[in-house]
Each structure stands twice: as structure tokens, then as C-alpha cells.
């Protein structure tokens, strides 16, 4: 059995356990990897295992997602941040899991939402929970700030991408710290940025234009919720992999609230939808 790595990083010092899953398994002496460059901090080089290559078989990495979530929307308002998504875990074109929470709480000041491969999202949540547990055990009153969570997720996703084995997710990180809202996004390649409103997946094309038109930094919570409802409705109308069951997560000075799932009123009976071929025989 390999000893469990103790430190998340040499910089943290000995004795503090970080999330062990993020660390590479240390090699035995005779298994030193031949690489051109090792990291200067003394950690092992990330390299493809030459033993696997020797057989002529390529090492298998994530090439496509299986159970996926669709877009996640996020906006900042005067007193905090709202994240919204539907609760669907789709298996290709099948609506397989209709009650999957894609918005999760990290700590009292931070929430994370994910689209993409949901098993990778559960792994990411495990990493974040381990970090939060370490904070709790340390018991010094400090918790991870939203910007720190965002930065940590950027590094994890970028490093996995560099190993050609990505975590297939588009993440949204929202938080409220020191009186200021924080909203950022991280893609599966490690692309990240912060903005007043973000969206992943289809939301980029459908929701972002509406947010750009209607968002103001000093919106009230009701206005922000109404804008999100509008965006969710448009995403439900035009995204195939979505259902009419949404949750909205709010983070503000009072903490984190994740709403119960709700549905939105949709309009399918415009007059002109009825009998479209009335004046055009053969059209549909």
C-alpha cells in the first residue's frame, strides 16, 4: 500500500492533509519517470505512464461525457449572487435523472453550479468538501473565500486538461464576501473569468444577450429573480436537453439558500402556432 500523501502542497508545510485525491500517487524508487522537466517545487512530474505506452495501447482518457447537465446561469445583484439551473441529468438524449441538484453549496459564502459530466462534478464536490472539512477541523474561523474556490477550481481543471484527461465540466462559482458579490466561471480547459453575469453551454447564446440588455449591478433581488426566470424560460424553450424544473441558489450576507425545485409558466398556444399550414398547403 502506498502511504497516503500528507500535504496538499509543500508550501503548506508538513502535517496538514489536503485532498489526497488531487495528489499523484508517489512512485517506487525503480519507477522514476523519465521526463525532460520536473516541477521546481519538488513534486513529481505529471507524465503519461510509460508502462502503459510500452504495450502500444494508448492510455484512455475522458473523450466524451455520459451523464450531462446543461446550462447554468448566474447574475450578481445589489446584495448578492443568484445561480440558476434545471435539475436534469441527461444520458445522451434521454432524460434520465430528473432531480439532480446541479447547484451545490460549498460553504456559507460560496456556491458552485456545474454543467457537463455530472460524475466529474461529484468528484469536484468531493474535493471541495475535503477542503471545507479541513477548514472546519482547523477551526480558526477562516473559510474558503469564493475567489479562492474559483482559483482552486481553475488550477484543478487546467492541470487535468494538461494531462489530457479533463474533468468535463463548465462550472459557475458564485459567492458573497466582504460585502461584495463574486461571480466567476471555469471551463473544462481551464478557461476562467469573472463577470457580473455568466452562463454556460446554451445559456451563453440564449441567456447572455438578455442579461446584457437587462442587468444592472444595483438590481434588487426580485428584479434579478425575474430576469433569471426569463432566461430560464428561453433556455427551456430552445434547449433540447432541458426540463421545466429549476432551482435557484442565492448567496448573500445572510448565507446560502438553495430553493426547492419549481416550474415556470410556458406559452405554447400562440394564435399563429395553430394551423400553420392554413394558407400554405404542404407547409408545416
Amino acid at each position, binding site marked *: 500500500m502506498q502511504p497516503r500523501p500528507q500535504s496538499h502542497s509543500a508550501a503548506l508545510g508538513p502535517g496538514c492533509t489536503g485532498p489526497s485525491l488531487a495528489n499523484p500517487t508517489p512512485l517506487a524508487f525503480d519507477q522514476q519517470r523519465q521526463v525532460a522537466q520536473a516541477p521546481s517545487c519538488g513534486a513529481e512530474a505529471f507524465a503519461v505512464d510509460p508502462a502503459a505506452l510500452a504495450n502500444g495501447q494508448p492510455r484512455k482518457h475522458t473523450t466524451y461525457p455520459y451523464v450531462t447537465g446543461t446550462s447554468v446561469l448566474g447574475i450578481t445583484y445589489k446584495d448578492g449572487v443568484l445561480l440558476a439551473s434545471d435539475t436534469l441529468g441527461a444520458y445522451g438524449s434521454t432524460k434520465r435523472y430528473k432531480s439532480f441538484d446541479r447547484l451545490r453549496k460549498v460553504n456559507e459564502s460560496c456556491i458552485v453550479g456545474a454543467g457537463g459530466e455530472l460524475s466529474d462534478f461529484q468528484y469536484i464536490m468531493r474535493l471541495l468538501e475535503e477542503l471545507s472539512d479541513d477548514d472546519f477541523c482547523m477551526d480558526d474561523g477562516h473559510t474558503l473565500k469564493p475567489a479562492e474556490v474559483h482559483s482552486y477550481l481553475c488550477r484543478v481543471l487546467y492541470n487535468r486538461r494538461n494531462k489530457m484527461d479533463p474533468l468535463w465540466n463548465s462550472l459557475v462559482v458564485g459567492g458573497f464576501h466582504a460585502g461584495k458579490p463574486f461571480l466567476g466561471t471555469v471551463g473544462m480547459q481551464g478557461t476562467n473569468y469573472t463577470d457580473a453575469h455568466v452562463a454556460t453551454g446554451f445559456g451563453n447564446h*440564449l441567456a447572455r444577450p438578455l442579461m446584457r440588455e437587462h442587468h444592472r449591478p444595483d438590481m434588487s433581488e426580485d428584479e434579478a429573480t425575474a430576469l433569471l426566470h426569463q432566461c430560464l*424560460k428561453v433556455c427551456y424553450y*430552445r434547449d433540447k436537453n432541458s426540463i421545466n424544473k429549476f432551482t435557484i441558489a442565492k448567496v448573500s450576507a445572510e448565507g446560502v439558500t438553495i430553493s426547492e425545485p419549481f416550474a415556470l409558466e410556458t406559452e405554447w398556444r400562440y394564435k399563429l402556432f395553430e394551423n400553420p*399550414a392554413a*394558407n400554405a398547403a404542404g407547409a408545416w
Partner: protein
Amino acid sequence: MAGASQQGGFAFDLCKRNEFFEAKGVKHPGFTKTGTTIAGIIFKASARLGIAAESHPAFASPPSLRLCTPAFIIHWHAMQWNFAIQLPSLTHACPSPCCYHQDGVVLGADTRSTAGTTVADKNCEKIHYIAPNIYCCGAGTAADTENVTGMVASQLELHRYATGTQSRVVTAMTLLKGHLFKYQGHVSAALVLGGVDFRGPHLFTVYPHGSTDSLPYCTMGSGSLNAMAVFESGYKDDLTREEAMDLVARAIRSGIMNDLGSGSNVDLCIITKDGVEYLRNHEYLQAKTYERQFPQKFASGSVPVVRERIYDIKKVVTVVEGEPMDMEA
């Protein structure tokens, strides 16, 4: 010409040869595509007036025509996006001259045409003429949209001479979809077709493979999702002409601002039974935000004076003949 079959339809003879070349590493020339936002909406105003729908004498439609309120079809034509909104058609007799009942189509389009990542034409026209009462926005390969719409326009003109009646929008739609299906999607033209004929306003989308949709509002092109978001949140039954124009302009603007393949200006085309209003560059969005003035004028007092020299010209210039010019004029 080699490859053109006598029976019509696409001749696939050369496809195997092309595949062979590709397998050998020959790179075929690509398409010059244009991103686009085109859209359309149908509007309908008379329903608001609470007028009972009856057959309008001007339409000369059969009595079995369904009574619906006129709709303005907003057809948005954008190279990058195609937006079209169809307004329901309302046929009813207007009891008083002050009643405003109009149904029609509003088409909209952006004006950017791209060749790869370069903008080829900053202000191209994407709303094509098909008939005096029918216009068509085109997205996809610019050559395909222009030639297909031009071909159908000339076919319809010959047809009008032969029949002596106004062209119907379904005729244009059938000609377009037959041609595009024959070429199995290789003619890359995604169109938003709108017009008003004796049966009322119509709005259709025609896809490159030949399928069509009849919709009250539609968008096409690379910015279609951005524009459709605006439509889905803003469309309601019985839009008036002004509301429809505003909604289409907003949707095209959404495509221009949020899609790289769309840009520049907004063109609108409003078609009603009374005629066509073609608003070229209805919104001119590519104006420079800052224009430097030549010569630059500085307000007095805004610039610190470093040095001042006064030259008395009279000391060096002598007027020897004639009257000095009157500079006050």
C-alpha cells in the same frame, strides 16, 4: 457541362473522385460563408380595436378563409442571423377611416458579410427582393442566397406575366424548397421568406436541405439563438406594427452585439398589403463613437497659454492698389 444530369437533380458522379483526392491529402477549397442574423415577425393590429373579423373586400379571398386578425410578419433577415416574426393576418372591414388595421410581416437582418474571419462587406444587403409583395432574408453562403433568390424572383416574374395575378408567398416557398432539396443541402442557403398576398401575411423559414416551417416568428443564421432569445421573451399575440418593428430591431441588435458573425447595421423590411417599406440601415450601429475634428478647436480658456507673440502685419504688408477685401462678408 460535366456532372449536370439531364433528368435534373444532383449528379453524385464526382463525389467518389473527390473522396479519393481527400484521402490522398488534397485540400479542397472551402466555402465563403457569411454569418448572419435574420429574423421575421408577423404583426396584427386590428384585434386591439375589437373589430369583428369579416372578409375584407380588398383581399378578394374566398368566404371560407379563416378569420384571423392581421398580423405583421417581422421577417428579419440577417446574414448572420435570420429573424422573422410573423404577424397574424386580420381581415376585417374597417368601419371608419381612422381605424388602423394592418397585418403584415416585418423582416430584419444585419449587414455583415464575412470571408473566414475577415469582414468582407460591412454593409451588405441581406433582404432580397422576390416579388413586389415578397421579400426573403438569406443566411449561409452569400453566393447561394443571392442566386437562389434571384432565380426564384425571375421565375415568379415570368409566372406573373403568364397568370396576370399577384404572386403568392407559398409559390416562392415551394420553388425555393424544391430547388434546395434537389441539391441535397449543398446549396447552403438558409432563408427567411416573408410576404403578404391575398390570403394574408406569411412567414416561412427554408432550410438548406429543403425543409420549411411556417411560424409566427423565426430566426436563422449564426446569431439565430441570440435573436430567438429576444423573440421568446418579447413575442405576444397581436403585436402592432411599431411593436413588431421594435422587437425585430432589438433581436437583430442582440445578434449583432452577441455574435461575432453578425455586425454593423440593422436593415428592416415591413411588408403589408398596401406595400413594402424597405428601411435600409434602419439602425446605423457602426458609427464611430468618436470623430476627431479637423482642424481641432479648443475652447478658449481650456488650454494653458505658454507663449504669446503678436505680429503686426501692417508693418510688413503694404496695400498699393485696390480696396482692401471686405472680410466681414
